[in-house]
């Protein structure tokens, strides 16, 4: 883990993306000041190769930052913009003046690969993929969804800005990987808040954290947070061009299962105050619950992993999972 990058990045997040700023962006659609700080920091070109003017870093080196962004609720498509810039640069297109960019994978028939559209996060552009072709398209605000986020909609009237070939489903794997990395971070955020709260909140004359039942719950949360963090590092471990299908097939089911447990335990720890609109807990849990619905959820990915195992039923499961892993 590249702590040289992580520490300055965390300081930046503390400055530009405190909970009150995050909450404001949910009401106002977009966060130009946060975007400007992020753009100026240079982090969004981290994955672009040095020959194209970027930092030439690997997804694995950026994984801790992507998890940290989720933990700090960074209300922008940070990882998505970073991936879009690297993908486009590889095809000869520069996006440095483009602002935030969303990832928008479609199936061959042109239908979205997720039942929840991307949160707009101030983006005017999306990299859209259908079959083996990626196009850069305009997006507009799509209205507020049931989770309280302003979504994006493809601006079907406008002409594509750029178009290039891209290995089929690359964007789906990137989008799913970045979603679960942000979820892993948000899970850690719930844990951070919960630990602070149970150590402080007194009931029956002592802090909640002194009760064994609460200790067990918090420990279970911590286990799932640690597991999600390693899963997120794993899904981002493959060098560019980036995640493969089975990388997501390992990470998405594990992180989704953990996210449900962490949301439930976090809300249980906070009690009624946690389900009020003004409390920050739901900034995390609304994102997590929405993430569970993204890019197929856990089931189809788990099925793909099981199918791959049955295709090589001869060896042991250790052989199989070793072959999945890399780096």
């Amino acid at each position: 883990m590249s702590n040289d990058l992580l520490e300055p990045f965390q300081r930046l997040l503390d400055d530009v993306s405190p909970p009150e700023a995050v909450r404001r962006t949910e009401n106002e659609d977009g966060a130009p000041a946060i975007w400007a700080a992020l753009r100026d920091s240079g982090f969004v070109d981290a994955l672009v190769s040095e020959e194209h003017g970027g930092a030439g870093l690997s997804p694995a080196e950026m994984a801790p930052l992507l998890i940290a962004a989720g933990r700090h609720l960074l209300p922008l498509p940070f990882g998505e913009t970073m991936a879009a810039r690297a993908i486009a640069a590889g095809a000869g297109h520069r996006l440095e003046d483009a602002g935030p960019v969303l990832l928008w994978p479609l199936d061959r028939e042109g239908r979205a690969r997720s039942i929840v559209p991307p949160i707009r996060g101030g983006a005017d552009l999306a990299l859209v993929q259908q079959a083996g072709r990626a196009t850069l398209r305009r997006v507009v605000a799509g209205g507020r969804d049931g989770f309280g986020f302003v979504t994006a909609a493809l601006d079907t009237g406008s002409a594509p800005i750029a178009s290039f070939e891209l290995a089929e489903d690359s964007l789906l794997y990137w989008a799913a990987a970045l979603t679960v990395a942000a979820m892993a971070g948000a899970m850690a955020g719930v844990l951070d808040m919960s630990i602070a709260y149970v150590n402080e909140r007194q009931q029956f004359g002592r802090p909640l954290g002194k009760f064994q039942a609460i200790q067990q719950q918090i420990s279970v949360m911590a286990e799932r947070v640690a597991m999600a963090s390693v899963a997120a590092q794993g899904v981002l471990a493959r060098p560019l061009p980036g995640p493969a299908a089975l990388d997501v097939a390992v990470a998405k089911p594990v992180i989704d299962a953990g996210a449900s447990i962490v949301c439930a335990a976090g809300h249980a720890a906070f009690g009624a105050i946690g389900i009020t609109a003004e409390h920050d807990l739901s900034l995390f849990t609304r994102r997590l619950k929405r993430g569970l619905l993204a890019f197929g959820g856990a089931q189809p990915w788990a099925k793909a992993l099981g199918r791959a195992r049955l295709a090589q039923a001869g060896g042991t499961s250790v052989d199989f999972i070793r072959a999945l892993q890399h780096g």
Partner: protein
Amino acid sequence: MTTLLDSFVRSHIPSSAEALRGEVKAFLRSWMADRPAHVRARSWSGFDAAFSRALGERGWIGLTLPRDHGGGGADAFTRFVLVEELLAAGAPVAAHWIADRQSAPLILHYGTEAQREHFLPRICKGEMYFCIGMSEPNAGSDLASVRTRAVRDGDDWLLSGQKIWTTYAHKSHYMIALVRTSGGPQDRQAGLSQFLVDLSLPGIDIRPIADLTGDAHFNEVFFDEVRLPADALVGTEGAGWAQVNAELAFERSGPERIYSSIVLLDAWVRHLANLPNAAEHEARLGLLLARMAVLRDMSIAVTARLAAGESPATEAALIKDLGTELEQDIPREIGEALAADPSAPPDEELLRTLAFVSQVNPAFSLRGGTREILRGMIARGLGLR
């Protein structure tokens, strides 16, 4: 939490350690070829002295111990590779298992030079087996309340009391026993010491206890004024509590806490591969494999910390709790899947394997520290309590 989270940094097994894998696989192919899955599934409880000696001949017991004590001088990653392959194959590791995982590291860290010279080479050859004398009828998770006592008699010690759930005491040469040498139960952790007890001494009575499958691997052990020489004490008198905790940290740190049900899982995979409607079970299989893959990465991350000379006890407890949960879920998931399809019944071998693993799986989260104790440790590591 920041500290605990930051210690799970994904790592990888270096190629120097991976180099051993092919050799281990080849060795296991010849040993394991004709053993049915329900026998291999007993791995941890499979006692086979000939197998242990064969491992010892190859230098695969005490792999991380120093060479001048008969060990392999290898790093924690090399041991990870070895243990992973042993468990994936369902190798019968019980005879040397405790000596290799707990007793030898304990003797290396806390023993005298004479104790090291006596015990470590014999352990490494696969010729000397150990059991653990921790639990007593009234001291399970609450280990500090042990009542078995050693009192001084001249230079010797006289040991009296009772241990229980002592795995393979009836086939082991030595027990490392945690006993009281001063004070009483009210003194809790103070006044406890560890002894190397030669199980052939007069005054020791070992009685097997059958488990719920009918297997007999654990025992109750009675001590009636057993005379122990002065050099039976291991480590420092009165420091037994700290030593036991270090010992349990060695025990919890390996890849062992993911794979207890892997023989069953792979037997089910072979069953599915011949099933026309296997696709119905792919998601269930994939969910188990996804968890196993991430837990393996977590275990490698902790192994990297061990290889760097650290002692990541809380992290090991965390992986053990998650890992045993997977090990326990595997027989339940497979049972549900098989039961739902009476038109494609499993063969006798798979059904027997399932029966065994689903009956013994509660033990996975009892041995080496219960789930509840581990979660208490994690909570303390998080700054609660």
